[in-house]
């Protein structure tokens, strides 16, 4: 930890206040750098959907309770609705559109189709971004663990048993 030195040592800083009007930021999304003009209050979710036309991440609750907006920042699953776009400068954002850069779907996308892991599909991009991370984290050991570590992704069609089946299938492939 830092901040153990003398309090409030004055230093020059390059930090400058930006906004509240739109400011030019650079976001690295799915391996591509984008320049866009956004107000500081704009969430990562709105920046992706409204400015970059990456509409995979969904706006369900917009208050951090449903998980439909789950994306990765520096490889970690987070909620894009509670993340401000400006805070992502200098970090790598991955959305469902960048999960399988080639034409082939990701194995978990294929497994969702094979196991009928969705009905309306609205929560599915968030479910998949969360589930791929879940498997990489090593939290897909059994159904109880999958349930607990996927609890941040709500599915109002209640496709949960089939979502777990898709996750198990990909877990067992790897």
């Amino acid at each position: 930890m830092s901040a153990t030195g003398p309090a409030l040592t004055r230093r020059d800083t390059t930090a400058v206040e930006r906004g509240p009007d739109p400011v030019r930021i650079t976001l690295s999304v799915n391996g591509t750098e984008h320049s866009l003009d956004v107000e500081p209050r704009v969430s990562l979710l709105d920046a992706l959907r409204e400015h970059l036309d990456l509409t995979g991440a969904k706006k369900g609750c917009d208050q951090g309770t449903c998980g439909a907006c789950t994306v990765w920042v520096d490889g970690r699953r987070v909620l894009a609705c509670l993340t401000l776009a400006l805070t992502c400068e200098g970090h790598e954002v991955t959305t469902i559109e960048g999960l399988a850069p080639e034409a082939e779907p990701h194995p978990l996308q294929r497994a969702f189709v094979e196991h009928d892991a969705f009905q309306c599909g609205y929560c599915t991009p968030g479910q998949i971004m969360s589930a791929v991370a879940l498997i990489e984290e090593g939290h897909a050991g059994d159904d109880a663990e999958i349930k607990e570590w996927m609890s941040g992704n709500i599915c109002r069609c209640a496709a949960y048993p089939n979502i777990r089946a898709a996750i198990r299938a990909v877990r067992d492939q790897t």
Partner: protein
Amino acid sequence: MRPIAYLRATDAANAVEAVSTDPTSDFLAGGTTEVDLLRQEVLNPRRLVDINDLPLTGIEGTPEGGLRIGALARMSDVAAAPVVRERFPMLAQVLESGASAQLRNMASMGGNLLQRVRCSYFRDAESPCNKREPGTGCSAIKGFSRGHAVLGTSEHCIATHPSDVAVALVALDARVRTLGPKGERTYAVDDFFLVPGDSPHREHPMEHGELITGIEVPATPVARRSLYLKVRDRASYEFALVSVAAALSVADGTIADVRMALGGVATKPWRARRAEDFLVGAATDPDGFRMAARVEMADARPTPLNAFKVELAQRAIVRALRTLSDGPGAGPAPRPGTGSPS
């Protein structure tokens, strides 16, 4: 959400200066409370000072057997740290019982302590609320209060403190380190959380612009046999109705040491000192556990809608103590001070 300005701080001193000299600036860490309440216009700062680049993310064991946790360490990283899991199993358990995997990847430890209450009247940005707008009254006392507190309440506020990890930290006698315009300070965690009294808008003793830099957990050998029991309306991703953080060491059938704190029932993370005092030196006997639980909850002041919490808390206390005294880990207390610093 109202328009807002943004400053990314480059070191802790700059961050503290930027906020302490501007009453309309707030710190931004993980954002899981702040952005939510900005959007609902419960919080309306002019400017956010982003502290996420500050080097306050360390998680390390101390040579004495304690922990030092940086304020910006994320809940998920603290829960996964081997030194935390080995020395303070309750702490890992409590962190993984809170929020969701995504939120735990975002939320900082310092921000967790400062998260705002879940009282719907506080969060609707409209109802009278002494916490949001001092002097306007408390809508919860005669309103929908099922989730509200029964301990530490006042006629001005009955909102429950929402943090899980703070409950464990209170049981463990942790310390909160801060940096403010007047320099560094250290608070005992139990003193860091204020009961509402007649000033519910004051939730902690820090001044504006004072920044949590870290959390220190002292070596606590009794914590090697500890647990966090959380009772809630659904099995995951839900705040506690009642929770118990407890640690117990037993020698020859007698309680040698015990730590206990309660969540979900009080206006601050509630150290159960009365129960502790009752239990130390007593036999590990269910009747004694029940009496300790009753003693702790004797001053509870429930509303008609949350009266169930008084009984539920007592049962949860007894369950936690029985689990610890009967569990597979029961037996001689673990040797103090084992485990290498890392």
